[in-house]
Structures are given as C-alpha cells and as structure tokens.
C-alpha cells in the first residue's frame, strides 16, 4: 500500500513522460538508427550499412559549401532579425497615435503562412511579370523584363540576399513582440533614476535597457536560431536550392537526399541535429559570457 502511494506521482507525470518519450526521444533514436541502415527507395530496410551513409554524405562534392552556407544563413538572418526587432520594439513601446494599428499590422507577416509568403515573394520577383521587376524597370534599374538582369532568383549571388530578406521578414514580428514584452517588464523608476543622474539616452539604452532586456533577447534569439536553421519552406518555395545546390542549406539538402538515398538523408538529419545542438550551446555560452562581463 505504501509502495503504491510512493508511485502516485508517476501517475501524474507519467503521461507527459510517455508523450515526450514517444514524440521526442523515439524519433531521435529512430533517426540515428536509420542513419546506419541501408534503406531501399520504398522504405524497406535492407540491413546494416555501417558508417557508409556518413562516408557518402561527407564525400558529396557540395557538402562543405552547404554546411558553411547554413551557418552563414543562420547568423545573417538572426543578426538582422534581432537588430531590426530591437529598433521596432523600441518604436512600438513609445506612445504615438495609431500605435495599436501599427502593432496589429506587424502581426500580418507572422500570421500568414510562411510558405504563402515565400510564394508571393517568388511571384513578385518573377522576371516576366513580377511587380518588383516592374518597379525596377520603371526606375531604370533594368533595361527589359524577362532577361537575366530581371531574374534575381536565378543566380545565387542575388537570390541569397532575397532569401535572407524573406526569412527576416517572417521572423521579425515574433522577435519584436518577444522584445516588446521584455521592455514592458523594465520598471520605469530605473529610467527615472538614470535621468536624475543625468545619463544620456544612448547611455541609458546601453546600460539599462539592454541588460534588463537580456532574458527576453536570449530567448527570442535562441528560438530564432533553431527556427532559421531548420527553415525549409522559404528556400524550397523560392529556389529549390538551385541553381545546382548553390542556395541550399543543410535542411534543404536533407530533403533532396531523401529522394535519392534515405539512409544518407538520415545521416544528414543527424548532422543537422548535431549542428543545432552545437549552435545552441555556442549561443548560450556566448550570452552567459556577456553576463559575466556586464
């Protein structure tokens, strides 16, 4: 009887533990296991494959480029998102007429499906009829529609900035709101004290707002790092990772590999998973290091 009572907490936590085990842990185990198997195109397991899947993956001609691009992609998107969101949050924290409507408007890119946003941008960039190109034509930036100069998604050097732009566009609303919530938690007497001491605005922002905003900032940035690293719809809808693999990140590459070799694709997933863990660890380390200095 007593023993049963001791087990009682298990009845309450049990379902949650089971849920986590089934939807989080089991897929991870299964993913790692698959990466060491030889799997047919139809999903039939044909036995162990040792580390051959990984060897094949690391031998891919484009593998190193893709991994490097993934890191650049994450850093660029998250850095821009955070910078823009900091400014926007500051703006939306002020009182101005129509603030409520402006705040609503900011939700739009967040509320719309990411895939939809990406497709709309692809259409706006269409070399023949896209509205962005029509504007560029009117402004005299390009000579004619339909040519290579109007085809910005056709070449990695012009496509990448657009992909980053769209990723920032869809990430900014969430980040801004997270920071806005953070700003709301900073008590106003701290600012009053700073004012009394004659601190400049810049100094106030640097020494009061930013440090007090750090918890919100850390969470927002971390969620963005993981989201952006695993981001699939934007690149897939706009370029398919083409030309070649020159706009593909590791998540896109994993998806392309799935059509060729499921085992190799699983190996890519494992590498991807490890990358997210490493990026997160680095990020947390860096943000804590900041705390010590401050």
């Amino acid at each position, binding site marked *: 009887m007593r023993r049963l009572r001791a087990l009682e907490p298990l009845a309450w936590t*049990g379902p949650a533990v089971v849920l986590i085990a089934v939807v989080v842990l089991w897929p991870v185990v299964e993913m790692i296991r698959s990466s060491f198997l030889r799997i047919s*195109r139809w999903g039939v397991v044909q036995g162990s494959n040792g580390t051959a899947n990984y060897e094949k993956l690391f031998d891919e001609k484009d593998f190193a480029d893709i991994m490097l691009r993934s890191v650049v992609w994450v850093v660029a998107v998250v850095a821009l998102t955070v910078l823009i969101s900091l400014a926007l949050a500051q703006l939306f924290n002020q009182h101005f007429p129509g603030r409520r409507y402006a705040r609503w408007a900011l939700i739009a890119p967040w509320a719309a499906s990411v895939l939809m946003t990406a497709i709309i941008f692809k259409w706006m960039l269409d070399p023949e009829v896209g509205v962005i190109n029509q504007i560029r034509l009117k402004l005299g930036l390009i000579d004619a529609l*339909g*040519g*290579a100069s109007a085809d910005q998604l*056709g070449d990695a050097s012009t496509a990448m900035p657009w992909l980053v732009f769209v990723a920032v566009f869809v990430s900014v609303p969430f980040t801004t709101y997270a920071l806005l919530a953070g700003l709301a938690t900073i008590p106003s007497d701290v600012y009053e004290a700073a004012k009394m001491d004659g601190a400049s605005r810049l100094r106030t922002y640097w020494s009061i707002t930013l440090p007090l905003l750090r918890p919100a900032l850390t969470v927002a940035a971390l969620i963005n790092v993981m989201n952006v690293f695993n981001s699939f719809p934007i690149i897939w809808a706009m370029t*398919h990772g083409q030309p070649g693999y020159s706009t593909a990140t590791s998540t896109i590459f994993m998806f*392309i590999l799935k059509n*060729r070799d499921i085992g190799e694709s699983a190996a890519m997933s494992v590498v991807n998973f490890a990358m997210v863990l490493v990026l997160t660890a680095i990020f947390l380390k860096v943000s804590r290091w900041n705390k010590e200095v401050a």
Partner: protein
Amino acid sequence: MNIKLVGGAAAGLAAMLVLSSCGSGDSGSGDQNASGGGQVTLKMVAADYGDGPGKPNSGETFWKGVVDEFQAANPNIKVEVQVINWNDIDKQVATMVQNGQVPDILQTGDYSGFVKDGLLHKADEILSPNVSADMLEKFAEFGKVDGTAYGIPFVSSARALFYNKELFTKAGVAEPPKTWDELKAAAEKLKKAGVSQPFGLPLGQEEAQGESFLWMLGNGGGYKDASGKWAINSPQNVETFTYIKGLVDAGLTTPNPGTKDRKTVWEDFGAGKVGMVNGGPMSIPIFDAAGLKDKYGVAPIPGKAGPLDTTLGVMDWIMAFNKNGRAAEIKKFLDFFYTGNAAQKISDTYKLLPVTKSGIEKLSGDEKLKPFLDGLPNASFYPFQDPKWAVVNPSIKQTIGGAVKEDPAQVLGELQKTAENS
C-alpha cells in the same frame, strides 16, 4: 489501477482486430460463392488522371462510363473500380498487397515491383492475341521482364515543339526550325523582334531530365549508349550542352534555365512571352486556357542536323493479379477496353495518347496531335528499368542546369560519376 486499464485497452484492441479480420474473411468467402454462382465481381484499382473527385473529368466518371457499357454487354461480370489519386496509389496498393487483398486489375505507373513476387498474370493470359498485336511494339517491349510480358501499356505521352505563330510572323520566321542552326537563327530574329524568351528552356527541378533528354536525342546522345552503359558525359552530350550554353549566353533562352520549372515556362509561353518551347499533349489545354488557342503550332523537335524522328515516350501500365484466378473475366474486360472507344475517350478527356496502332490511326486527323503520334512508334525512353535511374534522376533534376552555366563537361561528368558509383 494502471495495469488494469492497460489490460482492458489491450482486450478491446484485440476484440477489434478479431472483428475486423472476421469482416474481411466474410467478404472473401462471399466473393468465392458469387463466382461459383455465375456472377463475378472484378475489383479494379485505377489512378486518377483528372483534376480530382467531383470534377467533370474525374477518374470515377471516366471509369463509370466504361464499366456501365461493359456490364451492359456482359451481365455476368460486375466491375468495381476504386480510383485513387497519384500521390496515394503506391502506398495504398502496397497495403493491399501486404494484407493479401489484391485487386484483380491494377492501373498505375509501374508494374515491375510485383513481378518478382510472382503476383501477376502473364499478359498473354489476360489479353487476346489480336489486342496484343495491336500494341505499339516499342511500348509493349518495356512491359517484359526476362522476355515475358506482365505489364500492358495503358496510355502514353510524348513531346514535340510548340511555337507561337504570331511571334514567328512578327519576327519574320517563315516556318518552325528543323535544325539547331535554324533554331538559333529563328531565336535571334525573335529576340530582335522584342521577344524576351525566344526559346523556353526549363532545366529546373521539375522536369530537367525530360528537357535534357530531348536535346541529347537531337545529337544522337542519351543517358545511356547503345550497349546500355551510362553515357551522360559522352562527347555528343557535351557538344549538345555546349551548344545550349551558347544559346543561353546569347540571351536567346529563358534566363538561368537551371532554376526554371516547366510549369513557369509553359505559363510564360501561354502569356505570349516565349517563342518556342518543348511541350506535350498535356500542355495543349494549358496554352488554350491561357488564350493562345489557334495561335500556336506544333512541329517535330529540331535536332542538330534535322528534326527528331523519335520523341520522349512516357507510359503508364495496366496489370492483373493472379491471386483470385479470374483470368477469363479479366481478359473479357481488357479486350473490351482496348478494342472499344475507351482509349479515344482517354485522349479526349486527359490529352493522353493511345498505345495501340488502331488508337493512333483514329486520332491521326488531329493536326495538333499529329507530331506526337508520328514520333510515338519510334519513341525513346528514360532508362527507368535500371534501378540506378532512381538515384540519377533526382541528381539530374538538381544539377544538370549547371551544364549551361558552368563547364558542361564537368557538370555532366559529375552526373556520370553519380550513375557509375551509386
């Protein structure tokens, strides 16, 4: 407490399993009884070529028409058709096979997977000799495994060159090009007349393997050589892509072809922005709907020295499972299908092409379909019977566009390596 709960759930689950297996057992024996009593029900599974359930061109509507006619002529045989869309049909059929509930007749994209397990009737058990003889030999040949036919060609598709007559007139090009030199000359004139994409060139992910293959055929190349070895970077193919690269560099094609999907380029053709493009019968409704009806012509695809006498053939299959032993009834139904007007109805409804000589003859009056029909008996195919094609194909889709942007020999060489090493 917990254990009891689990136990109860398990008992319930077991009961459900027993019940459901009883159910299927019942229906199985019911079928057997029926066949003993003279009335036979054939179960057929077919893919949907239409726009989906409820649409006037849905597969259900089409097959109901065929079956009603057949049942009127053969009151002893009932045919139940289950139409499944292309995304799900492979999975659902696999489940049926695993559960031992195979249909009698299956119409889908591939048959070869079932042959190894001995699940299929041989084609000559379920098709009359006169119907077999009417099949296009080149197509029927691909239905054979080790010399024995199991798959029966169902419908096919082919490619030809579409050209915009209005733009050709405006640019002063009298007729569609027959050779690569003429193609280039025509494209230059179109460019001068202000056409932004003289030749529509979709080498992006959607269907780069098709467009590439058509160009390779024009120079006597292909994915494999005559002896069946992979030859993606053969000298002919490198020459072909060097030639295309020249067109791209001169701005005579779709910009950055390696990123453009067929769908987009066809839409641009429909919008009158493209002078010529390779297309199939399935692009006819798209161009017509875009308002280009009667303003475009169809011609054989130009090759290096002259127009192609072949085309890219694609086909789907019909097959019969031998589990229920109803060969005689299946034969009646298939003979009815191939000798009646069903094939013509398919091509009318879905713009797919027939696979029988008599079917081609019936359609030969259609001017827009003629270039496709002419190429059909001598069609060329992807090396889809080679298991490596499943690996090579996605690689081609992703990277072959680079062959008209970077060094053709190097890009094709990489693909050749993929084909040899995978």
